[in-house]
Every structure is written in C-alpha cells, then in structure tokens.
C-alpha cells in the first residue's frame, strides 16, 4: 500500500484511513513515552508539517523523552508526529550551516555528515532523536562544559504558533520566543524547521581514555580535572556500591581522533540487537543489578584504558539494544536526572548518592556528567555543576523516591531535566526553577490561552487538562 500520491491532486477527497479501524472496533490507539507511560491518543503522521500542525496542540519527534513531555493532555488533542518531515533544505559545506525540517533524525544526520567530516556540535546519549526534539529539550552531551547545549548552536527556527501563524525567530528576531523554545518542551509553538551549525571533525573516530574510579569524591575531582583537557567526559556509576566504595565507577573521556591516529577505514555501520519481548518485572532487581554492575566495574581490568572507538560506541552505547526499555518489563521505568550546582560542593554529590542508595533506587544505569554554565534557553536544564542520571523501575514507591530526591535537589539549589521526568510535583518544580516566571511571561505573550500543551505541562505547569 504505497503512500498517498505526490503526483495526484487529491485535496479533500481522501478520507483518513483511520476511519476503517474504529468502525471495526479496533482497540483505542495509544501513545507512549520511552519509559512506557501510556496514554490514550493518536499521532498524526505526515511529511507536510506546515499543513499538519494547523490546529495541533503538540508535536512529537521519535518519542524518546522518558516521561510525559511528548504525550497529549487528553485523547482528543491533536498531536503531530514529525519524523517523516526529514528533508535537508540547505547545507553549506564551507560554514557547516544546516537547515532542515524538524523531523530529521540525528541518526540520519550522522550517517550523512560524519563521512564528510562534520558532526553535530552537541549530541545526546541516543541518536534516535529529531532536530526538533533536540531543540525542544535543549539537549546536552558529554561536552557540555565546552560547547553548552544544542540550542547554543541553533541560528534560527521556523515555527507554527498557537494563533496558527508561522514565524521565523532567531537570537535577534523575536528572541524571547527563540530562547523560550530552546528547552521549552514544545510549549511555545511547533518547530517546523531548524537552522544550526555543524562542526568540523578531523576523522570519523574517537580517541577514548577510561579510568576506574574508586568512589564518588574521587569522581567529582576526576571530572573537574578532566574537563580542561578533554572536550568530552562522562562517567558510569555503580549506584549499589556502599560505604567506602560509594559511587565507584568508570570515567570515560574522549576527543575526535586526528587523522594520523585514526584507522584508515571508516567505522562499520553498527548492527543493533532488538530486545524481543518484555522481560518479567522482577528481572531488574537489586541482586541482578549488583551482579551486572560488578561485572561492568571489574570488566575494566586495568586502572586505565586508552583506545580508538567508533562514535556509535562512544556516544550511543544503548542504541545497540533496540527497545531496551523492555528489560524493565511492563511496569515501565523512569529516569531521574538532576544537576547539583558546583556551589553546593562535592559533599552534596556524595549525600545525594547516599540518599539514592538509602531509598533503594537500584539501577543498572547511573550516569554522572560535568555541566558548564547555564545557557540562554529559558527552561534549559544544565547549570554549572554535576549532573546525575539514574534509571529506576516504576514501583509503588516511585513517587516517594522522586519526592525525596527532589527535596534534596531543591535544598542544594539544583534542578531536574523535564525530558526525563514523569513524577515531579508542580510545587517542587516551581521551587527549583526561579526562571519559571520569565518563561510563563513569554508564554503568556505568544500563547495567552495556553492552547499548546502536553500531559507534562498539565502536571507541572498547571495547564488545564481538558
């Protein structure tokens, strides 16, 4: 069944194929975030974002945000899926300026541009995201201390606003709209096109150094020491370790390899494995996690390691496991990611880890990163300090755990990452986000009725649900 033709004039005659499904009594369509939170609703899929976003209240890309950022507030809300709008509109091979439709995926971009010696200035930990999503989340990466967030490299956005008009904004034109959209979770308008700058890379390979780290204090010091010399750093933490080994793990630092260091041939295209079905809900438990973490820690036999790896290995290790959320079973999972400001000091990071261990947030995945200064996005997540991200299975205790962690983070002056969040309370978010009134003022200007919204904006910003 090929798609509706691009070679026939058919405006207004073809009824949506969906009608047949409902008349046959098919199950209600649903949408999910990456953590398996599922709500009733359907996405409208198509190539022409300009046409599709008319009257829509939310756009979503590849649905990789963990919580409810990309989910509709109610089933009848019009949600646009942008992933088929993936055309590159212009690329200047002199300056690296790229303009593309918002649904272009980073996976696509990497495949096209790494062989030509270009790479996105900032990449998140998965390549299965769209350009629009990277802007809406103002994604950060292992190089935040050097390059800031993705938004710092965006030059212009073409947007469909709440009043259905279409505008182009930039750091010099309607800058309040522009900076409100960078990290604004899609709440100020639908992103139709993105213009950003790619960076030159000397080779398609990464030179990586890794080091076993004995505890959390050593970690914070090691991250700070590595920051000036390495453009990219990240650490994995065994968050079940306790006592003197609390926060032991492996620190990785990397940079693009120079041509004389890199292998002659480009990296081979990775062949990911699909997690074929839901694991039982008990599969991820403290025992299995501690065995997994122990293996991962001691697999790093030597204190230090150094080698050439592919960008996929370095940036996107989890992309090798398609549908890895299935490992957590049908209960789903959430990720808690916060930043603890440098001003709160290294002891605050240790205290956070102690609290996490005490609350029983058993996780095979706990990632620690160094953040540089806060960017210009009005709700952009990172701030100078230490970012910690930890996966947690959804359990009856989860709300209590997230509340306790949030109260700790508020006390340190830190904040959480909306793209990962599913359980933070409105009052907690307001307490940790002094920039919220400024964002709300911009929103009041561009969307006074708050027509654009998501399940998350209802939960956290108090938008009306229906």
């Amino acid at each position, binding site marked *: *069944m*090929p*798609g*509706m*033709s*691009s*070679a*026939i*004039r*058919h405006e207004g*005659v*073809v*009824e*949506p*194929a*969906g*009608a*047949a*499904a409902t*008349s*046959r009594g*098919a*199950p209600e*369509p649903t949408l999910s975030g990456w953590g398996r939170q599922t709500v009733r609703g*359907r*996405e*409208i*899929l*198509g*190539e*022409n974002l300009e046409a599709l976003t008319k009257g829509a209240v939310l756009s979503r890309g590849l649905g990789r945000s963990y919580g409810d950022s990309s989910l509709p507030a109610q089933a009848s809300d019009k949600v646009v*899926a942008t992933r*088929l709008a993936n*055309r*590159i*509109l*212009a*690329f200047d*091979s002199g300056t690296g300026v790229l303009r593309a439709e918002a649904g272009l995926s980073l996976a696509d971009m990497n*495949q*096209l541009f790494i*062989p*030509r010696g270009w790479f996105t200035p900032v990449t998140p930990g998965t390549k299965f995201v769209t350009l629009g999503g990277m802007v809406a989340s103002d994604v950060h990466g292992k190089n935040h201390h050097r390059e800031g967030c993705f938004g710092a490299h965006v030059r212009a956005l073409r947007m469909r606003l709440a009043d259905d008009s279409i505008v182009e904004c930039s750091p010099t034109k309607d800058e309040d709209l522009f900076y409100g959209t960078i990290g604004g979770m899609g709440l100020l308008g639908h992103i139709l096109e993105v213009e950003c700058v790619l960076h030159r890379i000397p080779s398609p390979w990464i030179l990586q150094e890794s080091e076993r780290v004995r505890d959390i204090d050593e970690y914070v010091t090691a991250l700070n020491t590595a920051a000036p010399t390495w453009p990219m750093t990240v650490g994995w933490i065994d968050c079940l370790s306790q006592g003197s080994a609390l926060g032991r793990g492996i620190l990785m630092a990397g940079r693009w390899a120079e041509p004389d260091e890199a292998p002659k041939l480009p990296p081979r295209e990775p062949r990911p494995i699909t997690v074929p079905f839901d694991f039982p809900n008990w599969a991820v438990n403290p025992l299995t996690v501690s065995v997994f973490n122990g293996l991962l820690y001691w697999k790093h036999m030597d204190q230090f390691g150094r080698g050439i790896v592919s960008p996929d290995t370095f940036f996107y290790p989890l992309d090798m496991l398609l549908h890895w959320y299935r490992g957590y079973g049908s209960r789903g999972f959430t990720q808690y990611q916060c930043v603890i400001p440098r001003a709160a000091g290294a002891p605050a990071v240790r205290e956070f880890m102690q609290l996490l261990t005490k609350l029983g947030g058993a996780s095979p995945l706990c990632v620690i990163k160094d953040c540089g200064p806060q960017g210009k996005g009005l709700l952009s997540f990172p701030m100078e300090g230490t970012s910690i991200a930890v996966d947690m299975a959804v359990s009856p205790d989860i709300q209590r755990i997230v509340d306790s962690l949030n109260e700790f983070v508020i006390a340190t002056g830190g904040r959480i990452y909306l793209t990962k969040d599913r359980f933070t309370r409105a009052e907690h978010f307001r307490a940790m986000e002094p920039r919220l009134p400024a964002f709300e003022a911009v929103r009041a200007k561009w969307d006074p009725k708050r027509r654009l919204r998501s399940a998350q904006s209802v939960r956290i910003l108090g938008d009306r649900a229906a």
Partner: protein
Amino acid sequence: MKAVILGGTSGMGRAIAQRLVERGDSVFLLGIPESDLVRSAADLKARNPKGEGGGYALLDLERPEGFAAALDAADAALGGFDAVIVTAAMFASQDALEADVELTRRLVTINYANTVVFCEHARKRLLARGGGKLTVFSSVAGDRGRKPVAIYGSSKAGLAIYLEALDHKFHAAGLSVLCVKPGFVKTAMTAGLKPPPFAGEPDQVARDVVSAMDAGKPVLYTPRMWALVMLVIRWLPRFVMRKIGF
C-alpha cells in the same frame, strides 16, 4: 544508477530516493506540486556525496498528455536514465469509494490506466537503449479480493498482472521489471490505523527495494514477513473470505 522517481517526494518513494542519492546514484523527481518538488530536490542534492543532482519536472498522474514531456526532461537532465521507479498512487477507503462513484473512477484511472500508460512510455525508452530497470509499487491489497480494499486492491491487482507480463515479455530484451508489494507500512496513508505486528517503516522498505533492484528480482514483498502472510491469505477458501472482515 540514473533513476527517475515518480512519487519520490513522500513516503516510501522519498525514502528510496534518499537511499539512492546517498550511495551516489543520480535521481530525477517527477510529481506535483512544485513547492514540494523544490524542497525534495534540495534534500536530495544535500544528501548526494558530491552535492550534485536536484532535478525535477512536474507530472500529474491525472494528466497522461504530460507524461512524455516529463520523461524527456528527465532523460535530458540525467543524460539518459536507466531506471524508472513509480511509487505514486492514490488511496481511499472502501467506504469513501463506495459512497462516491466519481472518486472510484479517479482512483482506478490513476492507479491502473494512467500508471500503465506511464510505464509504457518509460518501458519504450528503456528498451530503446537496450533495457534497464522498471520498479513499480503494487500492493499486498492486490493479492486477493478482500472486503476492505475491494476497489483499491483491484487497481493494484491489475497493475501487478501487467508488470508480470512485462517481465515475461521483455526480460530477454534486458528490461528488469520489479513489482513491489508493500504490506502495512507506517506512512501518512496508514496514520491512525493500529499497526499490525509486522508493520514496516519507509526506510526498511527502501532498503529492501533497492537491494531487490540491484539483484534484479521480479517480485518483492516488504517487509519480508508479508510474503508469508499473503501466502496464507491467498490459500484461504472462498467460504472463509466471505465470512471474515479483512
């Protein structure tokens, strides 16, 4: 490969066009509207490793009088094409078609009559230069007379038989005909339907189509699992087909 693609601005056609240019093949787009062709042509140009290409011409499948000129434009731009790919077609639900006979006339004209006319123009040009590849999208809907796709499916069935005959008749002369039968693929056309277990993505279809073209296969079910599904459906007896709803 120097390929002309009719329908290459959207859905599976776009994915095929992108895949071809990314590996260095030349692509010329045919279709409407022009605003869409301009954007897709820019995309293909940016994706081409050498930044080449980006040609297009207007072609409306409802206006067969323009077919020859559009193919001539493609031929001139590509310096003689050696592959023609047709993904364009029209879809409408069975309910909509039953309610509107004029819509039915348009759909069967576009999907069968005019597509065959276009293929005849293309086929003659290819044979005149000693052969080439002709890849045309039929559908699994054309494998069996089924209630929800009675009219659409019949237009695709007719097309499939035509393509089979072309293969029989001109294979020896160097024409490599590929009839593509996609199953459920997540595109704008199927948006809103609950995807069945073997639903495919346009990229996956594009990968299958390009490798089937390279291998010179005559028929392709994609995603592959649909070959098995349709094998079962083709063998279902009439009394079962009368009872069931698909």
